[in-house]
């Protein structure tokens, strides 16, 4: 799409309904932001509308705890730091990945690997926040994470499905996600206890007919009320009702039993794989952002055993997901990301583990907007440091936005303070973009 480089396009005098509702909903819960009517970015509605029509979607496979780049995307066989695994060729000449990802190696045409992340923060909490938000936290601002930004930029107000769904059913390192100053309207629907949302299924004691009748009665009463008393709070309240009603109707999206047995068998029985299937169902139904967290990669002890288990899960689940999306014609519209809070140390500790390491690590981007079959950046022979194409968390954030056709320099106005979607001074990695 055409970009608004400066983000300083003409601001409309009047607030659109969409702007107004977004801000109003956000303002209800984002107490730290004084004037939430001002967060709307400055660009033409036509561009925003065009962006949404492109139906871009994101599935973030969050490798919680920090996967090892050596055992995934940047193997160093034979190096003292390399560990025991071999590198295997992929179906793209010249690109080798760990032998623990044999199925993904056959699908490298879809994927760009970034091997040169230097994100500096090797602490779980702040590292995760950095990678989720693409910038270091600021005491005065609650930044939205990538899910909330995508939900806001690609979600449709009239949509009956959630804009941002986050599945994190393990307990270790669990993070809900944050919509920051964008407000609760863009907070994730967070599934932590089961793979289906709690409390959105119609109770058995209310029949389907009663359910519809109640909604119709509420509509009649609400319309009568709003005709006489139209204001922001009332509109926000109306919007919330409509949205909840839509979410109740979307409960089936989380029910993988509705998939043919052959599809369920293809994904298999691991929880991560089944959540990937849910993610596919959600993006197919136009949910803009789905995060599936697979915990827990924090392999301070027995790194190689841990990665044998977890890489097998990732390799299978992500391969099936890419195939499924591709066969349904969804992959060209869906960006699949593998990312965690950091990578793991080149040094192997006495427990045969690898510790936290953020100086030279990897992630992958597949599908929408991505030039597949690319390995971007380079680390030295032992994986100790980046020697080519160093990329920050902000650069990755900008790259993800660019792949989705979103101008990373577009600015939200938080009061009078402009805040670009990706941090100041960051740039998309053009080499991995289609």
């Amino acid at each position: 799409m055409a970009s608004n480089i400066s983000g300083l396009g003409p601001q409309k005098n009047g607030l659109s309904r969409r702007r107004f509702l977004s801000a109003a909903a956000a303002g209800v819960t984002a107490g730290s932001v004084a004037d939430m009517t001002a967060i709307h970015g400055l660009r033409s509605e036509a561009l925003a509308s065009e962006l949404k029509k492109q139906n871009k979607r994101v599935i973030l496979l969050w490798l919680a705890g920090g996967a090892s780049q050596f055992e995934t995307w940047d193997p160093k066989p034979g190096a003292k730091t390399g560990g025991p695994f071999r590198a295997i060729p992929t179906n793209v000449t010249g690109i080798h990945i760990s032998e623990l990802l044999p199925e993904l190696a056959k699908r490298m045409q879809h994927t760009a690997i970034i091997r040169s992340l230097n994100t500096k923060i090797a602490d779980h909490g702040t590292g995760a926040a950095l990678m989720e938000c693409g910038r270091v936290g600021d005491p005065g601002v609650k930044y939205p994470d990538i899910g909330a930004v995508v939900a806001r930029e690609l979600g449709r107000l009239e949509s009956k499905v959630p804009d941002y769904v986050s599945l994190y059913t393990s307990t270790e390192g669990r993070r809900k996600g944050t919509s920051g100053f964008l407000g609760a309207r863009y907070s994730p629907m967070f599934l932590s206890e089961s793979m289906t949302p709690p409390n959105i299924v119609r109770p058995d004691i209310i029949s389907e007919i009663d359910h519809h009748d109640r909604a119709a009665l509420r509509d009649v009463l609400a319309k009568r009320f709003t005709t006489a008393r139209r204001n922001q709070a009332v509109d926000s309240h109306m919007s919330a009702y409509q949205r909840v009603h839509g979410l109740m109707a979307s409960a089936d999206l989380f029910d993988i039993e509705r998939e043919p047995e052959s599809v369920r068998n293809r994904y298999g029985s691991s929880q991560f794989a089944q959540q990937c299937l849910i993610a596919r169902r959600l993006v197919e139904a136009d949910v803009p952002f789905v995060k599936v967290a697979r915990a827990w990669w924090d392999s301070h002890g027995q790194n190689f055993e841990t990665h044998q288990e977890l890489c097998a899960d990732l390799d299978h689940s992500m391969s099936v997901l890419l195939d499924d999306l591709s066969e349904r014609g969804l992959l060209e519209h869906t960006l699949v990301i593998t990312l965690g809070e950091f990578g793991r140390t080149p040094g192997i500790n006495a427990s045969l583990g690898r510790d936290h390491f953020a100086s030279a690590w990897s992630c992958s981007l597949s599908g929408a907007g991505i030039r597949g079959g690319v390995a971007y950046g380079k680390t030295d022979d032992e994986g100790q440091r980046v020697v080519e194409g160093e990329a920050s968390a902000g650069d990755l954030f900008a790259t993800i936005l660019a792949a989705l056709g979103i101008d990373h320099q577009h600015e939200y106005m938080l009061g009078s303070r402009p805040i670009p979607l990706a941090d100041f001074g960051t740039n998309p990695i053009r080499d991995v973009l289609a």
Partner: protein
Amino acid sequence: MMPSDESAAEPQVAAPPAMPQSVKVEKTFGLPAIGFCVTQGEAATTLFAGMSDFAVHRIDLAAEKIEAVPIGQERHSSYVTGLVRAGDNLVSGGYDGALIWWNMASGEVIRRVESAHSKWVRMLAVSPDASRIASVADDMTTRLWDASSGDLVATWGDYETKTPHDFPSMLYAVTISPDGRWLATGDKTGIVLVRDLATGEIAARLETPIMYTWDPKARRHSIGGIRSLAFSSDSTLLAVGGMGKVGNIDHLEGSSRVEVFRWQEKVRLYEIEDNKLKGLVEALRFGPGDAWLAAAGGDNSGFVTIYRMDDGKLAAQEKVGSHVHDFAFGQSPDTIYTVGHNQATILKLA
């Protein structure tokens, strides 16, 4: 691996203690890489160790400065995790799935079986008469090899390739009984199979489920498994080593755990857990007369522990600087040689 051959003539061999009252580190020296397996050479002063630099090393304990030096010119293409002595030869196995026969004296490669297994070789064992080599690997097969010709004699499956939670399983441990009749193997999920070495028939199936360490909620993976096995000298007892319940499987923070079975009766004689020196029990050996059992392993740090076999209680224990992956008795079991994380240790029992 089996205890080393005690036939080599050495002039001064201390008598092993009937029941050690103490175990003390006598000397520690550095290794150039992570030592995963160790066996004694023909001379009492020579050790061989398989390491993470893909090589088999000779260690001359009589040298003024003890060093580990790769034997020969060839190497595995991954970590060397199994090593046994068979007569004048050494046989090594590695994460590359290969087995290599070495001339122990010259370091020349006699035979190389590249695809002995389709996945990691985890451990080797040698029969008491040195005629057979057994290997276990993550392809979940146990393979029996003619130690002289290198011919594959038998392949046994019988393990699930996936864990109950549908992740790849691993076959970590193997040992052969001192009478040469029985072969025992142990996997990630805590299943021990004892089979007749001649026929391959399974004589016993034992379970040590606690050693699986599956975390169903917080981290959704496992870290444990059966890492070591040892038969008593009369072949009636089978000791199984691993780790107990662990709260945080990011680290090896579980209690070190040993279970001892009268395996033919399927009776669990002892369940031994040590919360003081934690981690995986990587190697086990019975002492003379089966009066005691030596266990070694660790978390970041290592340990050597002696358990009495009359009551399963701890008799002696010593902390070792870093995680111990394997140990061998000296020509008399008053001496223990450990290898581990860039470090080897000589310990004395008294």
